[in-house]
């Protein structure tokens, strides 16, 4: 163990102790949360006329003294939450948490993963995207609108954050994986009107990660996500349009997929595996890890002690081979 590892462990332990010692403030935040946030839209988000929502943060950990497990819904103002590394390597990840399109989780998947990638020198922007079933016009495109806008904003702020626009990627979990799969297949689709200079920037990520993703809206979909995104009884056309595995073309960036065989919530064959096969058929460089054990939504905390706990290292190694990450990889 070198000196840096010791210091890193010290910081992690201090953060854990701080988390233990406190409870949520009235707005749902913790003192350990990053304070830097970026609103996605200068005014009302697209299709948001008449929508009035105040973010609600709910703690669902049975023991918040041991760990936090918050989620957010009622998202009226989508934001980026900025996690800056102490030693930036110039790369960035737009991170899209899951939550079945009915909420997005905060600690598990999002903040815990962000801290892990910060430690590798990556600047992480956690996307608090709008939820399709909360009153927006064109509900099915709301997550994609936010994802496109987020990627453009990050690139527009590249100088400010010391990041290289050509090394900005995206990583999504579960329904957030559907957000990612939508962005990599539809980054050039016009889904909102240009509002400022940032909207002229390329929304194609340099690379993508899909963690136990929802991919299809057809047979084998995650029913809850589909109901939120497409409404009850979607047409065959809508199902086809929002099934990402059917839209893989040559402009899709290199993609990493990781899931577990025993995922009971999002069927592996119809989603993650189908996406991998579509990527391979389109000759998109891609990597797939299907752990025997892990279930759905293992993130960082629930993976502990299982082989799937190595997923961040696998992603970092893959990203380093791709030339996007430059930090130290173990």
């Amino acid at each position: 163990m070198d000196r840096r590892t010791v210091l890193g462990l010290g910081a992690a332990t201090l953060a854990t102790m701080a988390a233990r010692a406190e409870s949520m403030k009235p707005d749902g935040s913790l003192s350990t949360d990053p304070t830097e946030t970026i609103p996605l839209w200068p005014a009302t988000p697209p299709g948001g006329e008449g929508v009035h929502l105040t973010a609600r943060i709910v703690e669902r950990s049975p023991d918040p003294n041991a760990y936090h497990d918050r989620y957010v819904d009622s998202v009226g103002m989508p934001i980026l939450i900025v996690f800056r590394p102490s030693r930036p390597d110039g790369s960035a990840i737009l991170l899209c948490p899951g939550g079945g399109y009915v909420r997005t989780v905060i600690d598990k998947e999002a903040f815990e993963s962000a801290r892990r990638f910060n430690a590798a020198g990556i600047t992480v922007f956690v996307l608090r995207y709008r939820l399709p079933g909360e009153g927006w016009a064109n509900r099915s495109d709301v997550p994609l609108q936010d994802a496109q806008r987020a990627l453009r904003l990050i690139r527009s702020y590249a100088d400010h954050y010391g990041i290289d626009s050509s090394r900005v990627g995206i990583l999504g979990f579960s329904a957030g994986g559907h957000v990612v799969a939508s962005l990599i297949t539809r980054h050039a689709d016009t889904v909102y009107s240009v509002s400022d200079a940032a909207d002229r920037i390329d929304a194609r990520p340099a690379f993508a990660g899909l963690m136990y993703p929802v991919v299809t809206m057809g047979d084998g979909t995650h029913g809850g996500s589909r109901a939120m995104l497409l409404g009850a009884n979607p047409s065959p056309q809508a199902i086809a349009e929002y099934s990402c595995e059917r839209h893989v073309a040559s402009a899709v960036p290199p993609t990493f997929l990781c899931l577990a065989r025993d995922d009971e919530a999002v069927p592996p064959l119809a989603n993650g595996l189908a996406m991998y096969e579509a990527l391979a058929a389109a000759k998109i460089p891609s990597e797939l890890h299907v752990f025997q054990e892990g279930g759905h939504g293992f993130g960082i905390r629930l993976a502990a002690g299982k082989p799937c706990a190595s997923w961040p290292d696998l992603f970092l190694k893959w990203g380093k081979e791709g030339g996007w990450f430059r930090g130290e990889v173990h």
Partner: protein
Amino acid sequence: MADPTEIVRLWPSTPPGGEGVKLVTKMESFSQNLANHDRFLRDVGDPHLWVCRPPKPDGSAVLVIAGGGYTVIVIDHEGFETARRLNAAGVTAFVLQYRLPGEGWANSADVPLQDMQRAMRLIRANAKRFAIDPTRLGVIGFSAGGHMSATLATRYDEKVYAPVDAADQCDARPAFAGMIYPVITMGPGTHADSRDRLIGSDQSAARLEAYSCDKRVTPRTVPSFISFGGNDTLVPPWPNSMAMYKALVTANVPVELHAFEDGPHGFGLTGDSPKGELNAKLFLAWGARGGWFKSA
């Protein structure tokens, strides 16, 4: 690195179907660098196990099957290097020097399975001597050797030779199986040289199917670990690794899959390359979680 010196002959006399076969094993090398062996075997007349013992045994053991298209055996790169990496994790390795099917044996398509079954039984019959737990004995194979480990994983209890001694009472079922960039199918998308060597000239549809491991999967197939590279141009992943993975999932057999973006055929399971080491770590972590490896 010295070769292992402990050897266990598989058969007390002539191997099954070996009447009239006279072969003297030849060892040649792909490498002209004496410091970096990369030897291969052919004309294998003396099938045996090379016993590779770890400095700190954890009681587990793996039968290691190097590939070579059923034409040669890549004994250093996929055999001894794998054994060294497993040894470093406390696993006792038995590197199989197996008979090649195209070298004159009767029932040549079952010759590799005969040698594997016999090897598993001999290891178990001598478990005490090797200081291993017979319930924690698995198999791992590479390329054509992956066709062998997949064959053993699916056909471990098929009778393919007449018992020769008491050891043949022992169970030949591996507790787990690793299939590394394996040849699986004998149908379209196979590795043609492997197929021609194994199957010979009678390539009827029934025979091709009988030797396609994905067609032999049942719920009794053993827990499996599959890894390959998406850019493998020698053994196409889809009709081979992916077909096996799907067959195992369909039969509800525990299985783990790792498809590296960059994994050219032959990356191995070796501490000598980054991809080989990553493959080793994933295999060892999977085997530790399965309860077979104890010190990984």
